[in-house]
């Protein structure tokens, strides 16, 4: 390795957290923290230099040119969606670096826990590389207690955040309880942060918003036992935030429930 690019050097020094078919997730540090922070006591000013790296590695089964174009478009698309959300006040991680040529997106490291792991039934994750065995046993007591919120309150936060996103016509595309995190804050109330905008897109269609909700409903049902009242609280908060758009979405959601998320039955 004579001339190694900055991004591969960064990946080499990072810790692999999770590995999927499309991308690998690393925890990395871009820069050393400033001296003022290193010496100061930890004033909840958690390490700003920590970033989460989403590395869309090259796929050998695709033609090189196609692979490059797809990767670039997806990295750019995800970064743009995050900025749109930030501007609209949706809680999402900020962007910290983009190297589209290498397929790398660096985003703000969110301290906290995924909603999936905070709810009953979600403790086991299949794709964890890190050993979190001791974490899991601790959580069995009452994971939500550390955050000072009830399950119902958390559902309200989820509904509100999704509504904020849909109000600016962003469709997440993969709403699950794994793609939401609860982040402790300095005030009493934690933030609910939406993550993984890899499948997101822009659309004002009622159909797309309803399907987004339906995907989440299915995720709740399949991951967490007895989740119907939970999802109902999500919808109640969503309705409150969406205002007059809600009626159309509600009607469409009922349709989608009958037919599944794929609209067209042809082909």
């Amino acid at each position: 390795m004579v001339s190694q690019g900055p991004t591969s050097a960064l990946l080499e020094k990072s810790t692999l957290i999770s590995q999927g078919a499309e991308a690998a997730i690393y925890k990395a540090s871009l820069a050393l923290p400033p001296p003022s922070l290193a010496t100061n006591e930890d004033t909840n000013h958690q390490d700003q230099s920590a970033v989460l790296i989403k590395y869309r590695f090259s796929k050998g089964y695709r033609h090189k040119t196609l692979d490059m174009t797809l990767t670039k478009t997806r990295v750019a698309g995800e970064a743009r969606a995050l900025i749109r959300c930030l501007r609209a006040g949706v809680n999402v991680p900020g962007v910290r670096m983009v190297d589209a040529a290498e397929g790398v997106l660096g985003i703000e490291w969110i301290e906290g826990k995924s909603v999936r792991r905070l709810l009953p039934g979600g403790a086991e994750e299949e794709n964890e590389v890190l050993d979190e065995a001791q974490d899991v046993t601790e959580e069995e007591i009452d994971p939500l207690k550390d955050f000072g919120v009830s399950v119902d309150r958390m559902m309200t936060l989820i509904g509100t955040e999704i509504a904020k996103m849909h109000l600016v016509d962003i469709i997440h595309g993969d709403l699950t309880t794994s793609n939401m995190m609860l982040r402790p804050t300095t005030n009493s109330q934690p933030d609910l942060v939406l993550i993984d905008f890899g499948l997101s897109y822009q659309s004002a269609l009622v159909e797309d918003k309803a399907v987004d909700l339906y995907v989440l409903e299915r995720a709740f049902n399949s991951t967490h036992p007895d989740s119907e009242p939970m999802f109902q609280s999500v919808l109640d908060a969503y309705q409150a935030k969406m205002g007059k758009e809600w009626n159309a979405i509600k009607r469409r959601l009922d349709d989608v429930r009958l037919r599944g998320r794929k609209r067209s039955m042809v082909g």
Partner: protein
Amino acid sequence: MDLFFFPHLAPDRATTHVALFRNVKNAADLRKRIINAATMEGEAGEIAREDVNFAFIDARLITSRLHLQTAVYQSILAEAQNGLRTRTIHSEVLWNLNPTNNITEAIRRYGVSDATTSLLVVRIDGGTTPPIEMESKVKKVVDGGLVPLSQLQEVTDWSTIKKYHKLTNELSIKAVQEDPATQFAIIDNIVTSTVATKSVMA
């Protein structure tokens, strides 16, 4: 003088020197000097250019250390991939900071102007130069008070930043109108993210 240190980068790019000046008195002269250096020929030109081989940034438009660091890092990335959109890595920092694709506008807004009083001076490729030596080089060109980078928050001009980034009517900003501290944190996150995403925004 302050440093950004990127441990994974090659030695000649790992260290970036940063200096924040307040009460700058020679902004107009400095601007002329930079322009002259760019057009001078021969050996004299080389020397003149080396003297002002920094990114000079209007500190009012920088929201945080991370904001500037992100612009520096994206410039280093662009250079490593032969993807510079401006002539030098230092002008690339200004280009990365500006939300539009207009280079002249980037330099006019984010560079040194005759009215500049708070100035950030950035040297990216000076890793081998000891900080003391770099400090004397910087002090030779800027007439002003060198202060710690932590004083940046005292000079940040939030309303101009909101204007340049067209943030005034965004829901995120409107929702926290009554709470400046929270609003500034949100603006900081948006502008830092915008800088990071610049290369794929076009």
